[in-house]
């Protein structure tokens, strides 16, 4: 098991190296000048030249890559061309917001998708199944930005049930920064008001971002469960006279869990990086917005940094999912 994990981690290093190389090459292939982008329309030639020298942009690409990798090995992701901040600091600031939103979305996806899938499978072909499948279809087909604007319009503007964009009410200031997760920071500060406020602000964007995943999860749970329910051991369990609830939860679901888990892992990875639209509309200060702004302003080091973190998050989630297989299915072992 330990050896397996170590091998996977070693492999991850190679994957991430490939990711940096690809991101670096692609972002430098653009026919535009990052100095001009950073300094704007009115900058003078001497300023541009000074900027290029300061940031090493006048060096050949190979040298730039060498410098970048050298910094990376020392744990330094470089300096943002746009903000002149350390990218490590920027990511430490923006990643927790995205992580928090993603956790919220996954939670909502689980809470909605899993039970709906179960119900659909149990009522196979009947009305509840039909409704669940309709939800899965709609949830999968509705564009996120539309859903987001609709949700804001209805639940915030019209009904006033839920707060609008942002992580916290505009009139309350964020708790002292520890983890960057506002909910956790509020807990650490013992500030119940801010905690409730942060949770309330998570509901709409979490639901919107989680809708697509919930739909997918409904579909996956339904089909996985349907397949398992037709197996002999379920019939045996029922014949033994086990209570129906026990048959479903202990025997069927456990065996249907693997495909569901795979989907969930993939979703988690894609949510972490795919939150750009949701973050924009909900004014959520996460890495989605950071990545977009950086890309627009040709901030190469920042773009590579975000790509690297996204790759890392994706790899870790995948590894965790693989490890979780063993927990669900004793036949799988990694020794």
């Amino acid at each position, binding site marked *: 098991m330990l050896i397996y994990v170590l091998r996977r981690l070693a492999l991850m290093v190679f994957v991430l190296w490939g990711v940096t190389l690809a991101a670096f090459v692609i972002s430098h292939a653009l026919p535009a000048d990052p100095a001009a982008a950073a300094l704007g329309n009115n900058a003078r030639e001497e300023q541009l030249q000074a900027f290029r020298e300061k940031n090493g942009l006048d060096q050949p690409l190979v040298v730039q890559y060498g410098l970048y990798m050298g910094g990376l090995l020392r744990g330094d992701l470089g300096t943002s061309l746009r903000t002149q901040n350390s990218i490590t600091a920027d990511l430490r600031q923006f990643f927790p917001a995205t992580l928090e939103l993603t956790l919220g979305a996954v939670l909502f996806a689980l809470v909605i998708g899993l039970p709906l899938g179960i119900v659909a499978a149990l009522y196979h072909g009947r009305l509840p199944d039909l409704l669940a499948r309709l939800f899965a279809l709609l949830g999968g087909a509705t564009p996120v930005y539309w859903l987001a604007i609709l949700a804001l319009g209805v639940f915030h503007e019209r009904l006033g049930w839920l707060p609008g964009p942002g992580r916290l009410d505009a009139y309350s200031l964020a708790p002292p920064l520890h983890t960057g997760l506002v909910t956790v920071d509020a807990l650490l500060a013992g500030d119940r008001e801010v905690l409730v406020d942060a949770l309330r602000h998570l509901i709409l964007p979490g639901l919107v971002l989680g809708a697509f995943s919930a739909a997918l999860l409904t579909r996956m749970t339904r089909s996985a469960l349907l397949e398992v329910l037709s197996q002999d051991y379920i019939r045996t369990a029922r014949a033994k006279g086990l209570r129906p609830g026990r048959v479903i939860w202990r025997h069927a679901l456990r065996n249907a869990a693997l495909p569901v888990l795979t989907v969930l892992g993939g979703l988690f990875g894609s949510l972490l990086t795919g939150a750009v639209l949701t973050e924009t509309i909900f004014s959520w200060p996460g890495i989605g917005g*950071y990545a977009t702004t950086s890309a627009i302003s040709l901030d190469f080091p920042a773009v590579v940094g975000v790509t690297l973190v996204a790759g890392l998050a994706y790899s870790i989630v995948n590894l965790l999912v693989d490890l979780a297989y063993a927990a669900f299915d004793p036949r799988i072992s990694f020794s």
Partner: protein
Amino acid sequence: MHDAARAALTWSARTLTFALALGLTAASAQSGRQSTLVIGGDFSDLITLDPGVSYEFSGSLIAGNLYDTLVAYEGNDLQTLRPRLATSWKVTPTATGSRITFTLRDAKFSTGRPVTAADVVYSLNRVIALKTPSSFLLTDVANLKVGSVTAPSSRTVVMDLPKTANPNIVLALLTFNVGGVVDSAEAKAHEQNGDYGSGWLKDHSAGSGPFVLNRWDRSAQVALDANPQAFRRSASIRRVILRYMLESSVQQSALNSGEIDVAWDYTPDAFKAAQSNPRLQALRTGTFQLAYLGMNSAKGSPFEDPRVREAVRYAIDQDGIIRSLLQGLGRKTQTIIPIGLAGSNPATPYPYDPAKARALLQAAGKGGGFTVDFLVSTGACSGGVPCQDLAAKIQADLAKVGIKANIRQLVNAELLTAYRAQKAPLIQVGWSPDYPDADGNGTPLSDYNAKSLAWRNAWNNPQASKLAQAAAVETDQAKRAALYKQLTELMVKQGPYAILYQPYKPVVLSVNVAGFNRNANGDVQFEKVSKK
């Protein structure tokens, strides 16, 4: 079977009920709403709050409330200089140029220390030493060096200028945040690796302005608190919060629900709807931006012939653009100096006249028309119009006179690179002056030697260069106005530009906000705002 389904649904329902219950909990942070001003907008250009470094719209807006300059403009009058930290100033000629002597008022920084002449000298020297994006204003335009500004007493600042610098322009650019005065003791205390404290001042403040920075949560919000030490004291607003809200639709929703008091970035369509809403105030605030077409006049280009450039100016339907695309959020102007600056020229010699345009093309030997690459940004253009919508209208107008413009959409950075390399045959862009003075447009747009816009359009006219240079250093206001009249007349006839419009910036407020004014520079004095 039903058991299991029920269990699954109950679990789900419980969690969702909890979520909804949270949602319905009344907002708890009601206190202080009356004295807090919340502005929603796209502040993503914000890079630093250091007044000497910041060069972006959002940075200037905020720095203007954290720091004081020696002189300033008040309200919408951007032609009359007013006292700020300096109670009075005097311009005297010297053997080598001119000297401005400022007398300082009795003011205190938010740190409690007095504002002294030494702080002014330090603040200006620091900008020169740091080589920030705005330091060329002090070094190249004002021709200042370390040592040019001195403090003979704690209340007197003396600035020595060479003949090449116009003291009126210097005073005008000192109103920009590049002239913001920093508490030197505080900046020195936070200095790291010779950065004059700019790493710290990025997200802290040490000024004498009406507000101090509480905190800046990047990409989320900037919170300012009233500065009790300030001499321009905020009467009723204790806190200002600038919330990042990129989307106009989101700003609308937040303004309607009372979550924000001011929306900073409405689209023309949304603005039109706001005008008829009795719960909102829709302000058309001025700007010094110009949206224009640049025509590359290099040898061999179709725009080399001035008659072709004139034809384009006749071919553009400015009124149509302003009426339909901008929904009235723009002013019609055709000369290179924006309305509102001394030296601007209200003449509009080019009515929409496709027949005349065709005749001019005929005379230039281009009767059969021609094809040209038309470079356009992918983003929004001046006035909040999508660049591609504007470009489509221009394309249609040009097609009517036989010019086939092939639209090539590029991201801004790429567009700028092509323009800077003189590789834009026809381009749709905007320009705004760096400081509220006619020279901010006069030199870059007319003087080829400035290597700015005239150069980018490969347009070299020695007479225009001479006029722009003469007007820049002329200190006699009447003579200066006459020079700009000549220059604008020459440019409107000969120049490589077709000015499209001068946009208004729409700002929408809730009816209960009073005293909110945004001037054409983009400044708002938050201390003058109150909420009913």
